[in-house]
């Protein structure tokens, strides 16, 4: 094994054997899965357990009698007289709604609701909606509009997007999915660069303050030591990512099975609509899933991996250079800023401007400039940016990685042997031109 290999192996093995790594790696998918599970459980539980409620409407004005449409899970019954005492004795009625005798449709409506349990936000909306509809219809009728016309006024609007390709074919494009996927990928890269970049820096500082470098540098070239560290930590990140993806998918699959959704069912929309276990699933949700599967996922994943590793290598090299230039972590601040600023900037602008206009000028430039491209390109990727831009961006990143590693190598080999000296940018600049 050559020296870079030996160093890489050490960096990798010592890190993946750490208890904190094992815990983080196993717990995160568990957290994601249980979070997802709780959401499903709550929503299923709610629809299964929330019983039909019967509400006695005591309408002294007579406006609403036999006019209200029953929303989901709510049934209105009409009565002239129902007191709270009656409510206590009754098994069939859950609440009383009172309307005063003076009410006319031209006044604001004030309902009184009496019940042994308090009103949920959902049901409040449903009740207000039902009463509002009646008042609106009555007002429209009063203006001389036919009931038929009133019904036709209600129309549902949804947008189904299609992206037209150069070859004339069109694929379904879902704004929500694209946005969510872009954000998720960008955030993953952002956190990976930060978490693991800082680990590179800390590792370098550890070797420097422990004076291990003194010993190692006599057998390994500084460049080999730096590259071994950067690569070893990259492997740790990839290991963690792989375990996360596999475990999360596995756990979500198990949850899906428990709930009654199988992957095949999701993929085959036709059977879905006939599947009784999915009777409650919204058609919109199914569209969502099918839109997701319609994305060029293979391409997105491979490009994601390129930027995931590339972005890390670019920033990781710079973090290594910082670590070598300082004596302790507290001295890193002044050098950290120029590195963290573009990253924070890229995530902030990506989530606002780039997302708002994924193929605009700013978005295009940000996804090509290597300081911001790993994050910005991820946001754009699900929206299908032109291929030449992706290739240009990938090429630029590759060249920048080589440049960053060269630059970091120069700073590193001087920095790791320099103790007890506060270094500024001017000094760092000089190091670039030192010979041995």
């Amino acid at each position, binding site marked *: *094994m050559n*020296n870079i290999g*030996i*160093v890489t192996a*050490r960096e990798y*093995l*010592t890190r993946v054997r750490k208890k904190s790594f094992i815990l983080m790696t196993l717990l995160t998918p568990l957290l994601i899965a249980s979070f997802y599970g709780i959401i499903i459980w709550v929503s299923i539980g709610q629809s299964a357990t929330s019983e039909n409620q019967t509400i006695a409407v005591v309408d002294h004005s007579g406006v609403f009698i036999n006019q209200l449409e029953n929303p989901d899970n709510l049934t209105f019954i009409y009565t002239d007289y129902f007191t709270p005492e009656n409510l206590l004795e009754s098994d069939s009625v859950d609440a009383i709604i009172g309307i005063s005798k003076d009410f006319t449709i031209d006044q604001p409506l004030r309902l009184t609701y009496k019940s042994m349990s308090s009103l949920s936000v959902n049901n409040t909306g449903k009740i207000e909606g039902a009463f509002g509809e009646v008042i609106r219809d009555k007002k429209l009728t009063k203006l001389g509009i036919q009931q038929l016309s009133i019904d036709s006024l209600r129309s549902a609007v949804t947008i189904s997007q299609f992206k037209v390709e150069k070859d004339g074919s069109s694929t379904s494009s879902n704004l929500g999915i694209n946005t969510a996927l872009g954000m998720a990928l960008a955030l993953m890269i952002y956190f990976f660069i930060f978490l693991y970049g800082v680990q590179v820096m800390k590792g370098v500082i*550890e*070797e420097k303050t*422990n*004076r*291990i*470098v*003194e*010993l*190692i*540098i*006599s*057998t*390994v070239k500084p460049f080999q030591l730096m590259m071994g560290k950067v690569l070893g930590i990259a492997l740790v990140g990839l290991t963690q990512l792989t375990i996360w993806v596999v475990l999360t998918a596995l756990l979500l699959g198990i949850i899906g099975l428990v709930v009654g959704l199988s992957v095949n069912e999701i993929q085959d929309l036709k059977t879905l609509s006939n599947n009784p276990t999915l009777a409650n699933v919204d058609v919109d949700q199914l569209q969502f899933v099918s839109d997701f599967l319609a994305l060029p996922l293979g391409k997105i994943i491979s490009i994601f991996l390129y930027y995931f590793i590339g972005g890390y290598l670019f920033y990781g090299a710079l973090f290594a250079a910082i670590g070598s230039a300082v004596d302790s972590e507290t001295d890193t601040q002044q050098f950290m800023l120029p590195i963290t600023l573009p990253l924070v900037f890229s995530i902030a602008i990506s989530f606002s401007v780039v997302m708002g206009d994924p193929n605009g000028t700013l978005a295009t430039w940000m996804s090509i400039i290597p300081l911001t491209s790993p994050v910005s390109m991820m946001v754009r990727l699900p929206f299908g940016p032109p291929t030449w831009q992706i290739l240009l961006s990938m090429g630029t990143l590759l060249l920048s990685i080589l440049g960053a590693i060269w630059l970091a190598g120069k700073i590193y080999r001087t920095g790791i*042997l320099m103790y007890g000296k506060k270094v500024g940018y001017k000094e760092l600049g000089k190091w670039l031109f030192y*010979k*041995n």
Partner: protein
Amino acid sequence: MSILQIQGVSKHYANHTALNKVSFDVPRGTIFGLLGPNGAGKTSLIRIINQITAPDEGQILFDNEVLNKTHIKRIGYLPEERGLYKKMSVYDQLIYFAKLRGMKTEEAKVTINKWLKKFEASTWKNKKIEELSKGMQQKIQFIVTVMHRPDFIILDEPFSGFDPKNTQLIKDEIEQLKYNGASIMLSTHRMENVEAICDEVVLINKAKVVTKGSVMNVRKSLKDNTYSITYTGNLRTNSLEGITVKKQDQKDGNTTLVFTYQDKPNLNIFDKPELHISEYREVIPSMQEVFLTLTDSTNE
């Protein structure tokens, strides 16, 4: 026959000169003392020998060849500031350094176990470095230095942090390494150790070689006609002619007089019936005195 020949080596940094045309030879199979006050340039020289940095001028011959990368694995280095990975186990750490020095894993395992046993350290094998006492850590560091059987070993302050028992252990190990044919360069500030184990020394001060040679020759070179005499009996020192008394001590009825002759040594002046002389010798400066005299800046 020299294992190492330093020839006119200079190293300049932005604001100061670390080494100024330094030349000396390290004879093969000896323990060689590299001496000098803090900041004299010792670390710079060691870094150049280790090929961590390159000299601005001059060259170094290792085993009669110009120093190059192939020599790295033949050199063992114990840095003054000890460095080990605190969170790594003793065994993993030793394996790591062995591999970096080109040892095969199997060979490394055997050697490491042998050394751990020798230092009664086998039970700490799986302990992390941070769990060990300072002395134990030093032993591990020593193993890291010598396990790949280097021909040339640089030890920078090898005794710091050791109690007397372990200091003796390390001294014996160093003697053993020499006996087995290795050449050792020892950098230390403890002059009593230099006298005890070094064959030859070089003294560097302010980037320049001040003196070099065998320990005895270096000491003798600073002789200044000083003698010491121990006797019983009454003697009025001011009755003695031709000497200048530097020090007078009385202990258990014995008087020790340290003095210099103003002219040639002349024992006859002590030839008095009331005196019983038990010792008379020439005083040769200790390495400590040599060091202090030669590095004293007021002497320039």
